[in-house]
């Protein structure tokens, strides 16, 4: 058994509305091409076509934040974006945060501060948190809480999430990573 798809599943059959489109984009620094129905979301393209299952599907309607990724450096909800909209753009997922095998400081900080329990929301939390630093919105606890409020955590590890982000913000982040 493996958690990496080697063979993309066949597209749906007998669908009169189906139209294929080829999307060429950069994912975690690597050029990728996905041929898929025009209605396939970025989230499904990442998870089911490219085998990048680190990005999670929590609600598939933009309410939970678990699928947060970066497109051209901005945080977006991958379930609310079509893969086809990403043509020519640069997508970063949780798998692309580390550099030369070294985890991003935010990833380290989440471990150090116990910023999760089940961890299902964590990739989305971390992608939001990294963008938050770049947006300059990690100045105070209140800012962090306000601008992280789109990422639900049912285990409610919120105090530790805030502590992890503060810690990285205080250290100035690792700009090589940002």
């Amino acid at each position, binding site marked *: *058994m*493996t*958690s*990496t*798809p080697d*063979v993309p*599943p*066949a*597209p*749906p*059959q*007998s*669908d009169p509305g189906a139209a294929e489109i080829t999307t060429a984009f950069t994912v975690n620094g690597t050029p990728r091409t996905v041929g898929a129905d025009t209605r396939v979301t970025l989230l499904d393209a990442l*998870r089911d076509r490219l*085998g*990048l*299952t*680190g990005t*999670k*599907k929590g*609600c*598939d*309607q933009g*309410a*939970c934040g*678990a699928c947060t990724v970066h497109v051209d450096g901005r945080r977006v909800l991958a379930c609310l974006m079509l893969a086809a909209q990403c043509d020519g753009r640069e997508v970063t997922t949780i*798998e692309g*945060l*580390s550099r030369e095998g070294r*985890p991003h400081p935010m*990833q*380290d900080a*989440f*471990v*150090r501060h*116990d910023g*999760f*329990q*089940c*961890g*299902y*929301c*964590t990739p989305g939390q*971390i992608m939001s948190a990294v963008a938050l630093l770049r947006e300059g919105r990690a100045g105070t606890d209140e800012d962090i*809480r*306000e601008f*992280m*409020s*789109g*990422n*639900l*955590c*049912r*285990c*409610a*590890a*919120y*105090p530790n*999430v*805030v502590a992890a982000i503060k810690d990285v913000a205080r250290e100035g982040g690792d700009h090589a990573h940002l």
Partner: protein
Amino acid sequence: MTTTESTDVTAAQGIGTSPVRPDGTMKVRGEFAYSSDLWHEDMLWGATLRSPHPYAHITGIDISAALALPGVYAVLTHTDVPGVNRYGLEHPDQPVLAEDVVRYQGEPVAIVAADHPETARRAVAKIDVGYEVLEPVTDSEAAVAGEGPELHPGGNVVRHVPIRFGEQDVTADVVVTGRYEVGMQDQAFLGPESGLAVPAEDGGVDLFVATQWLHVDQQQIVAALGLPKDKVRLTLGGVGGAFGGREDLSIQVHACLLALHTGKPVKMVYNREESFYGHVHRHPATLYYEHGADRDGRLVYVRARMYLDGGAYASTTGAVSGNAATLGVGPYSVPNVTIDCWGTYSNNPPCGAMRGFGAVQAAFAYESQMDRLARACGLDPVEVRLRNAMSEGTRLPTGQVVDSAAPVDELLTRLRAMPLPADRSGEPDLRHLPGGVSNTTHGEGVVRGVGYAVGIKNICFSEGFDDYSTARVRLEALGGEPAATVQTAACEVGQGLVTILQQIIRTELGVEQVTTLPMDTSIGSAGSSSASRQSYMTGGAVRAAALEVRAALVEHAARILGHDRGDLSVGGGKVVSRTDGVLADLVDVLGDAAFDRTVEWRHRPTESLDPETGQGNAHVQYGFAAHRAVVDVDTELGLLKVVALDCVQDVGKALNPQAVLGQIQGGSAQGLGLAVMEEIQTEGGVIRNPSFTDYLIPTVLDMPPMRIEVLELADPHAPYGLRGVGEPPTISSTPAIVAAIRAATGLALDRVPVRPEHLTGT
């Protein structure tokens, strides 16, 4: 079990420390494989057709159009279930696939396997089911009165739990009464129900699934599949939260059926809407209470009637009702108690386990009553609780005498002594107002209130259940280092059990390197990751196995070193003599030897309740937590903000202090959700809000800062003195918040969740 050997509690990264989680790095890198991430070459996708009606006869099922769809490999109905088409945690009353009747909206009727999830979804839409729609049964009290059609043979009462303690017709000077309602809460774990079933060459199936109890799943699956136990093997897939909602089956039998039928691996994943139909919820409840006390506020009696709506199938309704009844007066010493609790069937969504399990519903009512009593006696809410607080030695309404610490008074006095947040002053920052930046006033209608509550929860399984866990511990030298391996079937659901089991091994064997094997059914049952029991039960089993390994190791060392074994101990990777100090490196003593022990471990037995009087030593341990909430309410807008939520909890022994805090924060948040946000709203059995845009759970903005104090008053009967941690903070959080809202507004507020219209009266 008691242990006579001493324990080196200062072991590096042993118990009492907070090492980082062994699964942490994979989780933050997105590499941890949750059950919804699993993939198999050539796999199919499963989908489920569910009833749109809460109650209907099925007049026919036509699958031909679905089967004809290219890419569809199987469409199965109840006639394809080879074994018994019934399952259930307490009573096998729930069909794997509906036969001639559906009893709730969302009940599975047929399942499909196809080569793409969209194809499977389209095939589901092409199944033609004929329904003769019936009037749904939705009233618990009517069910108890024997009214309405019987949904199951034997009637609509799943269980009636009476408690008769002390005098039944005593009177009191001060009497307060109330009728309270608790809405249906959802576990709302973020990782949806999912799993992958892989058919095996031996005619069996391997299932990788997110669950709370592998062996109880296995037991129900083999009955439905008509296979022997060794043909259905389960491995835990990564679990994205549970909170009780994964104790019942969801995809388990369906995925296995499809895999066995098609001969191909089948993956099933629910989407968010389906998840709201796909698991049991917290029982909604109606509770009638009467408290009698003397003029000093000392309780003379408590009388209560409780109605818990279990929905269409029994699930754990019996045990939930048992908890609500036996814990129905709360953590107080009450001389005379009359309680009747009924768990009933209806055509509402099935209800079962959720964090707090029956204790939550009762606590909202009895704590609301304690506040009423305080007002009636002119007492401070904390004072009335202190005057009635139970303690070690108290005889509970079941007749059981509490035989370990029950520091209810200390929890309350410590809580009261904590500093309160500063008053709002000056020009308000919108973000600090109820409603945050959505607030349209300038805070002129905002009032503040403070409320207290304390709760009690039974830890581990109760009422005579044979509650045990199995653990295997192996010690050997690997790569020049002593290395331990621990194997259990205990489900890591996010609570951090994997960390704690490693800590226990380090403490008992003094080795740093501990490997945790995958959790699966190749070892005996660990019981459920529920009832706040895994640190106690599987922690206890791992400790017992480690002690057996240590005893064998010491004997081996004594033989090799020619030393008196009574003088030897192990620690820090060394074999140590009490008289001569370090004798040898553990790795050298081990050599090629391996010590491997498997232990089945039980807590002290409990008793079932007398069916007429509810008397019996039903519970093995009790956990206690208390909360103080500070709430700002905008009385014009009906918005509120919980400003502070402080907690004191006794945990006996904090095996991992950081994980304990995480449980208290998380449990408190779910209690906050029930207090002011969370309810599955049903209308005639139909769920109106099955999405995260309509069912709201607390965000980081909804959670106030928490002051937390943790007491460690050892329970001499429990491993390391520990007390289960996960559930107690969920219980007192809700009533404390509602008490604070009442204090701010003067409103009665006898229902949770409190909604804006309850505050504005509109």
